[in-house]
């Protein structure tokens, strides 16, 4: 396959962005649908090429394709190049990103139908996908960072897609700034790696080699790896930089599904996997990743238990699942982490599309206004249940397999982290089925008041008429639900792990049911589902009663541990803005500028004072001259 075709994988969506924003929108805005077709065609092309690349990479020796490089900037001996690194990790990511994005964009045609920003939406979606595809193919850290920021930009543009809503504009800004705080670490790590590697390289393969040969090592390597992880934690919404993701719900729901499944948040996990040799050679860095991952997993799950908004529950589940992936990576297994990313992409995308479909019908995301949708929206219900079972980790759906691998590596690595992960399994199953029972079971609790009252909360889908979504939305959901069932089977014989260069200990399709660890996690998950049924389905105990019984915990969870308040009010508003920056402003006005104006006043005042000497009276001048001569004469006499 010609190397130009590989470049096309990410250039096609960029081209689509350019055509839509420079041609279709200014000149052909009457035919907005065209934008959707262009974007879908471009992503379809990318997917086809990605599949070809995957096939070639599987065949290639060492699972890597060599692509010629292009020079970007040369200054003296410093040369910055552009190049593509296409190995097994890249190939997997390419297929996931372009595949999920294609389905999301097809779905979006129905979902965004009639929106004033239809063309703009597809332009941004193309740019988003193109940036993510470019990110996973980058062969050096500068290029990776360029696309990394590109992904950040697109999430900013898409979260704030309905920019006239103050909440959306706020959420977009928050996402960009919080992730940029993490990017600070990444950027410094990139600079440090460049400055410290003898040859001055940002090439990822060369950096791997430097870490493996020990040329990079010790405390320096640890800090560089932690800097990289800071960037990853920002993008992948790991504690303490997770706060932007729940707010990112303000974007259109298909955007959420793309962000949560394949683009944005996957970038952080991918980055750690991509730079894994650097982590591998620093036990502290690896431990940091594992601990943050495990903590984030359970931490986010607790908030998912109580959130009343369907999208927020799914968002917390994403943060939690990303924590699992980081845990897998931190325990030393790239394959476990990436395999979970792979499976998660499909069922998480599906969950969001399902939530979008529900909103399409009800006009709200508040589960307290739903209920009984099972009969009205059978396809949505059916696919949603599959996705939830997969997320909860029920055999033989995809989530079961990859979650089990992570639990297995955690079990071998650190028992405390394993227990955290196991507890999270229970919570995951519980909140997933809480959503199902609240949304689809029982009877409809929304109704007449829903239409107007929630217009601002929903995605602009006004009067609810409780219908199944159109085929253009349902078909992608069905396709994803097939993947949510079978995608876990790619590693039944350890094929997926082997492709990523790791030896796996496959359990086998039925063998898993005989494995004690797998049985334990399965049992815990089932317990979670039963508990959810008990509270929200059969109502053996009332949810309100539980909330009252555990009021302190409930308050902590529902207020998101007050971290938003801590960051935004205490740290940013009070400490930074009012105190530090305020002092600086006072300093600027009264000290720095005060001195300048003071100097001017001094000159003016001095001038006024001196002016009094210029009386214009000849007698006075004569007197002064006389005195001066006298003084000079005296001095001369004295010096002699």
């Amino acid at each position: 396959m010609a190397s130009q075709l590989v470049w096309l994988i990410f250039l096609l969506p960029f081209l689509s962005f350019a055509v839509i924003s420079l041609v279709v929108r200014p000149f052909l805005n009457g035919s907005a649908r065209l934008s959707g077709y262009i974007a879908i065609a471009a992503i379809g092309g990318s997917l086809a090429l990605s599949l070809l690349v995957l096939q070639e990479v599987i065949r290639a020796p060492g699972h890597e394709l060599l692509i010629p490089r292009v020079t970007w900037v040369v200054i003296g001996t410093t040369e910055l190049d552009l190049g593509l690194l296409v190995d097994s990790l890249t190939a997997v990511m390419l297929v996931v990103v372009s595949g999920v994005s294609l389905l999301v964009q097809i779905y979006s045609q129905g979902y965004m139908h009639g929106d004033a920003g239809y063309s703009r939406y597809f332009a941004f979606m193309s740019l988003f996908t193109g940036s993510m595809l470019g990110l996973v193919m980058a062969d050096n850290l500068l290029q990776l960072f360029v696309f990394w920021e590109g992904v950040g930009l697109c999430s900013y543009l898409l979260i704030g897609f309905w920019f006239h809503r103050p909440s959306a504009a706020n959420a977009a800004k928050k996402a960009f700034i919080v992730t940029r705080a993490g990017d600070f670490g990444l950027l410094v790590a990139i600079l440090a790696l460049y400055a410290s590697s003898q040859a001055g390289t940002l090439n990822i393969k060369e950096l791997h080699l430097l870490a493996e040969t020990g040329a990079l090592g010790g405390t320096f390597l640890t800090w560089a790896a932690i800097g990289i992880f800071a960037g990853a934690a920002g993008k992948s919404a790991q504690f303490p930089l997770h706060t932007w993701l729940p707010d990112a719900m303000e974007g259109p729901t298909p955007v959420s599904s793309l962000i949560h499944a394949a683009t944005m948040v996957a970038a952080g996990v991918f980055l750690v996997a991509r730079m894994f040799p650097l982590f591998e050679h620093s036990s502290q860095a690896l431990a940091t990743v594992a601990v943050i991952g495990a903590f984030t997993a359970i931490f986010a799950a607790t908030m998912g238990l109580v959130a009343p908004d369907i999208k927020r529950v799914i968002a917390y589940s994403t943060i939690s699942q990303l924590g699992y992936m980081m845990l897998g990576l931190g325990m030393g297994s790239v394959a476990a982490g990436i395999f979970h990313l792979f499976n998660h992409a499909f069922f998480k995308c599906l969950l969001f599309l399902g939530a979008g479909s529900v909103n399409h019908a009800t006009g709200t995301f508040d589960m307290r206004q739903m209920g009984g949708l099972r009969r009205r929206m059978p396809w949505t219900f059916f696919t949603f249940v599959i996705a939830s079972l997969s997320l909860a980790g029920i055999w033989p759906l995809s989530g079961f397999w990859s979650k089990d691998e992570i639990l297995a590596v955690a079990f071998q690595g650190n028992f405390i982290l394993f227990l955290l992960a196991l507890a999270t399994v229970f919570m995951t199953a519980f909140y997933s089925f809480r959503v199902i029972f609240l949304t689809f079971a029982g009877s409809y609790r929304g109704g007449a008041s829903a239409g107007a009252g929630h217009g601002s909360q929903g995605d602009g889908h006004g009067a609810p008429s409780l219908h199944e979504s159109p085929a253009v939305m349902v078909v992608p959901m069905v396709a994803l639900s097939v993947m949510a069932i079978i995608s876990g089977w790619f590693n039944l014989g350890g094929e997926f792990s082997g492709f990523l260069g790791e030896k796996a200990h496959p359990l086998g399709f039925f063998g898993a049911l005989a494995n004690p660890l797998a049985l334990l996690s399965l049992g815990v998950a089932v317990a979670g589902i039963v508990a959810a049924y008990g509270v929200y389905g059969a109502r053996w105990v009332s949810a309100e009663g539980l909330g009252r019984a555990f009021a302190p915990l409930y308050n902590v969870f529902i207020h998101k541990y007050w971290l938003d308040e801590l960051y935004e009010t205490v740290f940013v508003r009070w400490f930074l803005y009012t105190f530090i920056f305020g002092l600086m402003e006072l300093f600027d006005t009264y000290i720095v500028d005060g001195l300048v104006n003071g100097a001017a006043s001094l000159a003016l005042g001095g001038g006024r004072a001196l002016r009094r000497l210029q009386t214009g009276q000849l007698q006075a001048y004569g007197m002064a001259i006389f005195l001066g001569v006298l003084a000079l004469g005296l001095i001369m006499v004295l010096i002699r």
Partner: protein
Amino acid sequence: MPFPILTTIVFLPALGAVVLALLPRPGDRLVRYTAATFTFITFILTLLLFQSFDQKLGTMQFRERVPWISSLNINFDLGVDGLSLTMVLLMGILGFLAVLISWKVEKRVREYFIWLLLLEMGVLGVFLSLDLVLFFLFWEVELMPMYMLISIWGTGRKEYSATKFVLYTLTGSAFMFAGILVLYFSTGQFDMTVLSAMRLSENGFPREILPAAAVFFLLFAAFAVKLPIFPLHTWLPDAHTDAPTAVSVILAGILLKMGGYGMMRLNISIFPGVARDYAPLLVLIAVIGVLYGAAVTLRQRDLKRMIAYSSVSHMGYVLLGIFALSPVSLTGATLQMFSHGVVTGLLFAMVGLVYDKTHLRDIHKLGGLSRQMPIIAVIFSIAGLASLGLPGTSGFAAEFLVFLGSFQSQAFPGIQLYTALGVLGVVLTAGYMLYMLQKVLYGEPKPEFDDTRDADFLERVPIFALTALIIAVGLYPASLTNVISLGVMPIVGRLGF
């Protein structure tokens, strides 16, 4: 004798000013078209100059040297290298666009454009002069038009701001003039290229009057005020706030760069040893400027003041790149000067448009404009994103090179820590830029702006042109860095790292 292209470039705007002055009772249209014609031809000439510049030669090119005051060894001496070429090109672009941006000036039109053209001549002269006396003359020439433009066509406390600007700059110039005289009396030279080759900081002066470090700082004072560095920056927000739009564009776009250019051309070239000795101090000031400027920006509520303070922060990157003293950092600093010129020029143009339409600059009173003025909103956003260093825009390429060059610099141990602190500035920049964009453009549309209009055709030309330039340089910075590094390499060579 070859065609004296540099002389032509410098004096063509002045010729335009003379023509404008001599036109008998011209209508405003004629005045505008005349100004546009002269600045456009100047722009084309700077493009031609860029085209015909030999991109393999690291020396002065197109040198024109005519004895002027022979008894004092003063020459009319022009020349261009990679550094000055970039700045001249920037002036050529902004000079023409400034005329377009000023198209709707209605007050004393002829005078306005005369001053604007003279301003362009002064700036071009500064960048092309190789003789210190000539350099100083052009440096001073630029003050008069600025004073007039701010105090007559400005808004608010315009006389105060204009006076402050002129007095502040003059104070700096006085130090520089003393420095130039000391240089002359201790070497007998006004020629920058000869002075640079004398290696004064290693070999010492032929006749020492003052220590090299003292002369270094005499010259530095003028550039420090101009750039401006912390804490000599307070003239800038005032001048910007009260200047008319096009003058803000020129001021932020190119006048500030005279400071950075002077530091490279005189301070580092002539006194590399002193530059090395004082690099830690100056890098520290640079980092303070970056963070301090960004912090104070966040506290402003006037759009122009915000962008003015953001310039203080961005010029901190320039200072950092210059005194990190590595080839990459110096190239990055120069690219940052170009990029900041285009980006901040565009930002001021956008603020000008918003102000024209709404008569407001207070971010708490503006809001939701993207519905009423979609084109302005898009371009304003792109400018803001470029300013916060988004990849794909010139801002990223420049900042990244500054950081990379500073991080690998051997100027002094520990510079990595300073650079890392400087990188922290990009988070703050993202903070204030997105905050500003949100306040002005997003959120609920306000009914009081329902009658406003989006940018018309004439207004679109300059802002589209600048946007295209930002993205072009961002995607392929080598188009400029190849030229810049030619100018930087000889300077770095003298540093002897």
